[in-house]
Every structure is written in C-alpha cells, then in structure tokens.
C-alpha cells in the first residue's frame, strides 16, 4: 500500500512549498495568451515609455540608454506590484487548501511570491536576449548587486503582502484600501524619471520610498556612470529587514486565528 514518508518539519515545508509552486505555474497562465502575456505586457510598457522619454531626451538618459533606464524601472515596479498583489490574495485564494494541516498560510505566500519573482527574472533575461539579437548595446557592470536589489525589493513586497493577506482575513475591505494605496506607487518610484531630474532640495518628498531606492540602485549597478547620489543601499536593505521582521511577527501571533474564522 501507500508508504508515507516520515518527514521532519522542514521537509514538509519544502514539499508543500514546492507543490504549491507547481500548482501556481499550472493555474496562473491558464488562458489562451498564457505565459506569453507575462513577457509581452511589460515589454509593451517599456517600449512605449522609452519611446516617449526618448523623444524628450534622445537615446540616453543620464548616461544610460533610455530603453534600459525604462526597463529597470518597469520590471522592478512590476515585480513589486505583482508580488504584493498576488501574495496578499494568496491566503484567500488558497483557503480551501488549509484543510490539509500541512499547508500553512505562509507556505502559500512564499510559493506565490517566489513564482512571480521567477517570472520577472525570466522576463528580464528574455529582454536582455532580445536586446542582444536586436544589436542593442548594453552593460551590466555589477550583476550581483542587481540580484541583491531585486531580492531586497521582493522581501519588502512579500512582507507587505503577508501583512495585507492576514489583515484581509479579519477585515475584507482592506483589499480596497490596498489598491488605493498602491496605485500612486507607479508614479512616485522613479519608474520613468530619475532623481537627477529633480532638484536635491525636493528629494526628501520622494526618497522615503524603498522602491525608488531599488530602481535607482539597479540602474547604477548596471551602469556605474549613473549617479546613485540620491539613494542608499543601507536604506533599502534596512527597510527589507524591518518589513520582514514586522511581517513575520504579525504572522506568528495571528495565523492560526486568521484561517479559523
């Protein structure tokens, strides 16, 4: 008959997250456009925005090609928004699965978050390949740092998603507030502008936002000539740490009741 492996807690966690991850792949791109949509959607945005910006400032924006300038802005804000939106819905969406005692809400958050991270990473690599075949020149001076930036941003998005997801279990209306709160992020996170477009005396209106730090730092990591004067890696990593700690604390005290309502 069926043999059940006696697993320790870590092995159960790993198996569950893997199973949820596979399930996510299987169910996320289920319409006809499928996976292609995940690639085409940001590409269209990047082209449109870099075309507009390109008309204003020529082929280069503060020493980096406008296309890449837009690419880092667009991909990172989409990484943030996609991960935040999907992880904050993950608990509600997978509610039926918590019937299995092995499946805990945080596993579904991690699996969802990891899935959208992988999607964006794949899109990034694909865009680079397309640029290569189009004969566009590009530099990546510090690839390691770009990854670290993305991971820090991902941690912030997932942590916020976790907090919102838990909050939604208690107050369903939170999801409406969340969409109001996240809408402006696209416009204030240096997606299509640079801090260098803005006089330093106004920086303090914008530089509280860690997403902006992640985007500007990634541009700097790709082209060392691009100024990182307005932003700080310490602030980005610090925010990631604080958000993660806070989210895990909230989770620890409330997850059992959150799924028992």
């Amino acid at each position, binding site marked *: 008959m069926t*043999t059940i492996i*006696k697993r320790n807690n870590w092995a159960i966690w790993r198996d569950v997250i893997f199973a949820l991850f596979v399930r996510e792949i299987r*169910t996320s791109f289920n319409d006809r456009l499928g996976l292609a949509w995940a690639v085409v959607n940001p590409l269209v945005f990047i082209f449109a925005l870099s075309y507009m910006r390109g008309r204003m400032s020529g082929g280069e924006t503060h020493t980096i090609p406008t296309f890449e300038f837009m690419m880092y802005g667009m991909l990172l804000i989409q990484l943030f928004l996609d991960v935040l939106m999907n992880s904050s819905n993950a608990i509600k969406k997978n509610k039926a699965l918590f019937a299995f005692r*092995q499946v805990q809400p945080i596993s579904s958050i991690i699996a969802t978050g990891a899935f959208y991270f992988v999607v964006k990473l794949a899109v990034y690599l694909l865009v680079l390949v397309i640029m290569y075949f189009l004969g566009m020149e590009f530099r990546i001076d510090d690839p390691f740092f770009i990854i670290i930036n993305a991971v820090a941003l991902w941690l912030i998005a997932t942590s916020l998603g976790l907090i919102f997801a838990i909050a939604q279990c208690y107050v369903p209306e939170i999801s409406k507030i969340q969409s109001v709160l996240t809408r402006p992020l696209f416009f204030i996170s240096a997606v299509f502008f640079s801090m260098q477009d803005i006089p330093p005396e106004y920086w303090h209106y914008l530089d509280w936002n860690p997403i902006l730090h992640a985007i500007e730092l990634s541009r700097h990591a790709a082209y060392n000539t691009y100024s990182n004067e307005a932003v700080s890696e310490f602030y980005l990593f610090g925010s990631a740490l604080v958000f993660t700690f806070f989210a895990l604390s909230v989770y620890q005290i409330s997850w059992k009741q959150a*799924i*028992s309502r």
Partner: protein
Amino acid sequence: MIRLENVTKYYPSALGKQYIFDNVSFDIPSGHNIAILGSNGAGKSTLFRILAGSEYPNKGRIVTDLHLSWPVALTTGIHGQMTGAENARFIGMINGVADLDTYVNRVRQFAELGPKFDLPVGTYSSGMKPRLAFACSIGIDFDVYLIDEVTSVGDAKFRNKARKALTQKSKTANVIMVSHEMDELRHFCDSAIVLHKGQLTFYNDLEQGIAQYQAL
C-alpha cells in the same frame, strides 16, 4: 486517543460571538469507528476541522499521536483548473506519499473517471468531484479517516465500491464519520458521539447513541 483539552471555539458574527464549544475537554477513544451525531449547526463539521488541524480552536488544543486524514468532504482541496491527475499528485505530495506515480495510478483506478481523469476538474459533474476527493484520501494510509458525508454521494456502483474500500480500511484503521443517513452509519460505525449544545457524549453502543440523538 485524540484528546481535546479545554477547547473553546467561536465564530464572530453580527450578533456577537457564536460559541460552538466552550471550554470542552474530551477524550475520543481509539479502536472505535465512531459516528458523530448532532442536529444541523451543532458543530459536527467544525469538530472535524479542528480535529484535522484545518482550523484551530480559539483556546485549548488537540493532542494526538495518530495520523489523521484531512476532513474528506465533497471537494476539499480540489482545484477546478487542474486535472484529476494533477490534483491527486498535489495531494500526494503534500501528504508525503513516497511513490507518487503509483499513488496517482491507484487514484485513477479507484475513481473510475475514465478519460475525464486527465481533464480539468471544472468540467466534472457534481457527482464526479466527490469521487475524486474520496479516491485521493482512501489511497493514503491513515490511522483515522475523517469522512464527512462523502460516501452518500455518487451513483450506486461507486457507493458500493466506496463502502467496500472503507470497510476494508476499517480493519486496520478507524473511521470517524458524519452522515445524516443512519443506514450509512450503521454499516461502518460501532459507537457514537452525540454533539448537543456544545457538549460531547460518547456512547459505546451505536444504537444507544442513535436513540439518544433521535430523542433530542
């Protein structure tokens, strides 16, 4: 043995907290096939979900060293966009089944869904989904199966098959069952727990339990 220790469970509502259990301590003895009896809304399904770890009590805890199934209700954990095979694989993975291919095959044979097994569950008829859910759980060896009305759905042929399989299982494992059909309960169970006004009472003899329940 499954022990409930000072379990309090309520659901928040517009009319204040709706208590299902208020500081209940109770031992569910091992070695019995138990029918859970109670009127609608007495908390049978809630009890099931707490036992299985699908939900947690507001206070208190459940202590057991037995391997309990998930509460096998009509469509627990079945995803409409995935095929029957994928669903089975997912459930196997989560429960730590060693040989997934064999397990999926066994579910395929037991559920008898034919080619539909490889189509999305969303296309199944309402009688086919519980067949899949039941096949998934019976394919795994648990110490205790928590069965919620599942054996009373499906066509006559499948009900027979489910009965046989569950009877076979009940030689090596135990069943805790919720059903409103007394014949169903008489077939599988030897004892009963009557759930009334948040209190649990164990009856060693099923008939005694049923009599008590019908007198309520």
